[in-house]
């Protein structure tokens, strides 16, 4: 794998994570528990869609085959997606949505902090802009996770169930492969395994305050970031998301 090929894959991972999660969060529109949350979720989704445009446009530029963010988002099939399995899982209830958001925000905030010092200036520039958005996301989602974890008996049970369900999808964030190794060698991105300590400290602090218990066991599902085996859910999401572009090819919208 050349450095350019690895960089392309790495950028797809960043862009597909925000694309797929942004799509999931936008499914909430009009259905949140209270108007203020509706508005807040839409802000998060908007940030994620904006980050997607930046990452995927850069990916297309690096690839050099004339694909822009829209072509990459709407005209690839499941096996070409490089997002973490975590973000393609269905929303579940509001508690699970916020727990997933927090688990992702925490990771993204640690990662973007490192990417701001990337040897690739275009990556550093996007990380700088996205970093500010994500700093707010993690503040908001951690506040909600604490409130719901330490709220009522029912909310506590729901949040613990959400954490138990989602935790086996966290490990994939930190599992390096040859793309990551190439990125680390080039000084473009950190070794994913090196983010774990900071992540665990941040997540542990919030979950503690939320009176929630991190499940034991280090098993985790994998197959999203290298596209080897996505969940069944991603195909359904793409069916919906890509429908117009697929049904009316070549139209401009």
């Amino acid at each position, binding site marked *: 794998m050349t450095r350019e090929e690895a960089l392309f894959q790495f950028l797809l991972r960043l862009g597909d994570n925000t*694309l797929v999660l942004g*799509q999931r969060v*936008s*499914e909430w*529109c*009009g*259905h*949140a*528990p*209270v*108007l*203020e*949350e*509706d*508005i807040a979720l*839409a*802000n998060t*989704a*908007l940030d994620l*869609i*904006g980050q*997607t*445009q930046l990452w995927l446009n850069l990916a297309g530029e690096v690839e050099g085959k004339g694909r822009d*963010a*829209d072509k990459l*988002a*709407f005209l690839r099939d499941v096996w070409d997606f490089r997002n973490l399995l975590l973000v393609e899982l269905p929303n579940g*209830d*509001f*508690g699970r949505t916020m727990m997933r958001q927090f688990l992702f925000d925490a990771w993204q905030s640690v990662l973007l902090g490192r990417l701001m010092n990337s040897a690739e200036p275009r990556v550093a520039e996007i990380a700088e802009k996205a970093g500010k958005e994500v700093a707010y996301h993690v503040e908001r989602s951690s506040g*909600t996770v*604490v*409130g*719901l974890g*330490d*709220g*009522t008996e*029912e*909310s506590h049970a*729901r949040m613990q169930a959400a954490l138990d369900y989602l935790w086996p999808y966290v490990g994939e964030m930190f599992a390096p492969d040859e793309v990551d190794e190439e990125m680390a060698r080039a000084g473009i991105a950190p070794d994913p395994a090196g983010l774990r300590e900071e992540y665990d400290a941040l997540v542990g602090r919030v979950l503690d305050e939320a009176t929630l218990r991190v499940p034991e066991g280090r098993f985790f599902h994998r197959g999203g970031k290298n596209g080897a085996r996505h969940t069944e859910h991603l195909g359904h999401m793409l069916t*919906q*998301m890509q*429908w*117009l*572009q697929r049904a*009316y090819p*070549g*139209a*401009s*919208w």
Partner: protein
Amino acid sequence: MYAQMIRTASTGVKPREEMTPEERRFQDRIDAGEKIEPKDWMPDDYRATLIRQIGQHAHSEVVGQLPEGNWITRAPTLERKAILLAKVQDEAGHGLYLYSAAETLGVSRDELIELLHEGRMKYSSIFNYPTLNWADIGAVGWLVDGAAIVNQVALQRTSYGPYSRAMIRICKEESFHARQGYSIMMAMAFGTPEQKRMAQDAVDRLWYPALMMFGPPDKDSVHTAQSMAWKIKVATNDELRQKFVNQTIPQMEYLGLKCPDPDLKWNEEKQGYDFTEPDWDEFFDVIKGNGPCNVDRMNDRVKAWEKGAWVRDALLAHARKKAAPAAAE
């Protein structure tokens, strides 16, 4: 839309000689163009009419998220997705501003939401029509928001201060809504034959429902007089409808789309278009709950509210726990 089908609690306007001194002073302030503020004295009917009108307006914004939200996950480009999401988010914000304005009159947001869910308060008939193809999203922005803006620009001058201020903020934010809708319509109307067909289909289905947004004809709108005297409404349904048609037809012609009204024509004498009234029987059917989407819309909202109950309770419970030790110190 919003001021549709509002009924004042009393019928007709009270003649000046029958007014109490308080009512007379109140009417004088309104006539002098003063704004009425929350703690000011106001007739009970004025308060009740405002609660209904503002509440209905707020509900319309919130239910109005649904037909457009229907297309967020299917928007054809990332930019269109972001714009639509930001637009629907604005509707939630507008609902929030309006509930806040209603709350200054002594009714809580949760009370208003319950009245809506129990079917004791209405929302605009337009949101009971479905959005069936992507051009509907353009047509909703262009026609539905266009119609709403005509009404809301007028309402900026309404006599109740908090309502007027909410309208000013909403109008400022809303000016992008109609434009984004028209931008979608341009892409569709000037696009492929299939896109053009979608655009025409959307206009065919949404034209008359958009005209209905201004409410029944003035001759059948018995309660307009009191609302006008109180400056809760500042223009009649027919005046606003005419204004909307006049400004919209040239925009439709630019797109090369056909108005589904075969009798529409320019009237040089009145400097406006003559047009066919919508089918008012259909309108009253929709208002009564028999529109194509009434049941689904209400089920969606009730389900969201009920499914959110544990979240609202939990966050409040957590806030109280946190506050408790501090209060004990």
